[in-house]
């Protein structure tokens, strides 16, 4: 009798769980079926080889749904979508965009819908799969914009044939007259990573430092990312403030003596959410496909593709990080400056960028 009672109680206890699990699976299958009926998905974002070469084929292979990827610079995409929406056309389902576009345009102008209630895929909804114990929603309401990555950013690169690592221990070392004309940066007078770096310098070290670094040190500016990494490799400008990791790492593999510096004594390391934040367009023309994609891109498979493709550190606990540069992986217990923090993006960074521009534009 007793075993029968135990069995009966086990069945009674597990029945709701099983029922819920079956209901969730049924809902998920309904979404997949609905997405297949819709027949396509439209994603908007910056030009992205990983999207074109890996994500699109993989998603099609997995679910049979083709992705139309509308690529362009963020300002162009924003202008196009805003004009479309003004005319009653809603053509985009999902955005994969940078933090500025996400915060100031998509969220700021109410072009997106809450994503949180739609993330139901078991391996996505399961908090144990995420380093924070839950999905990281970056917006103030914690419902709209998912941040899937958090990597330690390279603060600067040096060519060790010309610059010894001991000579670059603190930010103040950049002001050594020896490096006058030997430092390159993306142009800080326009929106971009150069201005973001300069804003960070201003925030941490003040106006005087910015003036000395960018003006007195005759920092060489460019708007072409490959120029900076080429100068770094050739040693003509052996210190690079805003080179991209995916431009420089192939050079390191080729044997160029380049060192990545992630932190300085007077400037802690920073983390960022590159390559994108995920949001759902409101009035999406293919809502089921949009929900399916949003769940899938946050799954182990989806985020894993981007993590490998960009060398970014994902927020999932189950993605292999052994192939990543150890310097990019945030260390436990270390307080980093978060360059993708929402408040910093919306207010602080723009404010400091303006201050930098005032310094640089009025300098003689």
């Amino acid at each position, binding site marked *: 009798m007793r075993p029968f009672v135990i069995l009966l109680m086990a069945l009674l206890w597990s029945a709701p769980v099983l029922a819920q699990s079956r209901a969730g699976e049924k809902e998920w299958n309904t979404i997949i079926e609905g997405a297949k009926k819709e027949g396509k998905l*439209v994603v908007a974002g*910056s*030009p*992205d*080889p990983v999207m*074109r070469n890996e994500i699109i*084929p993989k998603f099609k292979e997995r679910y049979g749904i083709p992705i*139309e*990827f*509308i*690529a*362009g*610079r*963020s*300002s*162009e995409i*924003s*202008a*196009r979508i*805003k*004009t*479309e929406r*003004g*005319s009653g*056309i809603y053509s985009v389902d999902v955005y994969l965009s940078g933090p*500025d*576009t996400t915060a*100031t*345009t998509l969220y*700021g*102008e*109410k072009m997106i819908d809450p994503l949180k209630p739609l993330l139901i895929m078991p391996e996505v909804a399961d908090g144990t799969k995420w380093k924070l114990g839950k999905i990281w929603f970056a917006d103030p309401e914690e419902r709209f914009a998912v941040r899937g990555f958090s990597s330690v950013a390279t603060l600067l690169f040096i060519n060790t044939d010309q610059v010894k690592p001991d000579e670059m221990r603190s930010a103040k070392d950049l002001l050594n007259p020896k490096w006058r004309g030997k430092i390159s940066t993306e*142009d800080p*007078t*326009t*929106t*971009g990573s150069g201005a973001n770096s300069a804003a960070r310098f201003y925030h941490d070290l003040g106006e005087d430092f910015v003036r000395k670094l960018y003006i007195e040190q005759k920092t*060489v*500016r*460019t*708007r*072409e*990312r*490959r*120029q900076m*990494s*080429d100068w770094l*490799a*050739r040693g*003509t400008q052996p210190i690079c403030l805003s080179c*991209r990791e*995916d*431009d420089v790492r*192939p*050079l390191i593999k*080729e*044997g160029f003596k380049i060192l990545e510096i992630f932190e300085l004594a007077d400037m802690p390391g920073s983390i960022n959410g590159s390559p994108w934040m995920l949001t759902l367009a409101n009035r999406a023309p293919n809502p089921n496909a949009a929900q399916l994609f949003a769940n899938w891109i946050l799954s182990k498979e989806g985020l894993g593709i981007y993590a490998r493709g960009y060398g970014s550190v994902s927020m999932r606990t189950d993605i292999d990080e052994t192939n990543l540069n150890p310097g990019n992986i945030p260390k436990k217990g270390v307080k980093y400056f978060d360059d993708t923090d929402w408040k910093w993006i919306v207010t602080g960074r723009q404010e400091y960028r303006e201050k930098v521009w005032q310094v640089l*534009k*009025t300098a003689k």
Partner: protein
Amino acid sequence: MNVTATADKLSIARLRVRPIRIAELSLVAFFAFVTGLPLLFLLGGSFNLAAPGQAALYGVANWARAFNDPTTVNALWMSFLLSGARLIPAVMIAVLFAWLIARTDMPGGNSIEFFCWMAYFIPDFPLTLAWILLLDPNYGLLNTLALKLPFVHTAPFNPYSFWGIVWVHTSTGGIWFKVILLTPVFRRLSAALEEAARVAGATTTAMLWRISVPLLSPMILAVSVLSFIRGLQSFNTELLLGTPAGIYVYSTRIYDYIRREPASYGEATALGSVFIIALGILLFLYWRFLRGKRRFTVVTGQGYSTARVRLGRWRYVASAGCTLYIVIMTLLPLAFLTIGSFMRRYGFFSISSPFTLAHWQDVLSDPIFFLALKNSLLIATITAGVGVALYSIVAYVLVSRRAVVAPVLEALCWLPHILPGILLGLGILWLFLATPLRFVFYGTTWGIALALMVSDSPVTTQAFRAGYLQLGADLEEAARVAGASWGYTYRRILLPLLAPIAGAIGLMNFGGALTSISTPVLLYSHQSRPLAILMLEYSVTGELERGAVLGLLITAIICVMMLIGRRLGLQLSGQQ
């Protein structure tokens, strides 16, 4: 009876005038719609200060912010300096090239003309990178070789400078654009005038300076105006070469406003208004100069000779000079561009196994490459074909003495030239979406072609206009007297005489449609994606090598079209 006869004459006159009036007003309405409305939208938007989604609030804050920026005036002055500095030598060299190719017995003229065309279509971004490889003060090949000489102690060349920018522009589209437009009109010049000058004792130089150039001044001036405005808008080369040297140009300021997050199109449009003023002044001077059509007529019903000027021994010097110029300015950087497309890292010869076929394989195996190529060829063909037909009629109306609102039509045709490509694209996007046009054009190849045709209107219209100015009115009158309709006259008399210009402009627009990025980027859809979007991706992601591959492929396509187009053009004009 007298009253009846007068009334009959008046009604006949009205009947005669009506077709030109209908054409004129229809064209004005069309261009007011496709060029005027987008500009009005942009200008209106520049005065709207409200945040998106809120009720409009008008004011001048955007304009004040744009022009109060201390760097704006400096950038504007730099743009004028750069545009002017390269215009004068470029026009002189282009006139000389065009004259030598079209009017003299210089050997190899056809080949030189072919290379001028090819040079025009090589994308300027990778070509500028090739110049950097040659001239960089630290590692440029030419500087490295020069420093080996015992009397050279510092690098003599530096592209990151004012004159470096001017130099690179003379090897990219600047000169070749003028040569392409001037050569057909030089060809149309009657040798009778040159023979008369020679009989009167004029030297070859005097003949060129006192006869040929004044006769072709409409086209030379039109090309100069177009080039000057283009120069003000130029910024790709200036971004690469000017930024490291602290040289910023006006278009960079416009570009900066557009790149902001959110983009500041109000300020960008405000800055773009300067081009309206510059163009207005130049056009006023241009129109004053052109008053009186018969001064420029070279083809009449009284016979026409195309004999070439004999240069004697100087023809070999001319040929060698032109060839040397093309080799230095075009083939040398083109060779580096080609080599770069086969390099694992552009410009890095010292890495292990520096050469690879991988970039060519990657581009050609890209799943969207062939679809994008197909779309681009379709867009380019529509842009070229329809554009030639449309603008040849527009130009006819402009030079017709019977046209009443020709200045309005011409002004509307000039408008696209004052807007940077991205602003024009935004204006046309609004036009499509705000009207029923969106059901036909938005996201389609036809829509992109229409936008590109609109952007081509200044160059195409002025080229045909200059061509018509060379044709005597007696040709048309003779056809009319013989009973030919206007359509017949256009097809059988005017078009064959204009064939060289039509061919040149058609090919130029075809090539421009293949390489334009800023106009299609706002208008394409997944189905109509052109090659330009692939070029944009390679540019944004720093894949220079693949960008070089694509640039070379586009140049090769245009070379093939050039050869086909040249053969067709010669057949159409009855030449061998």
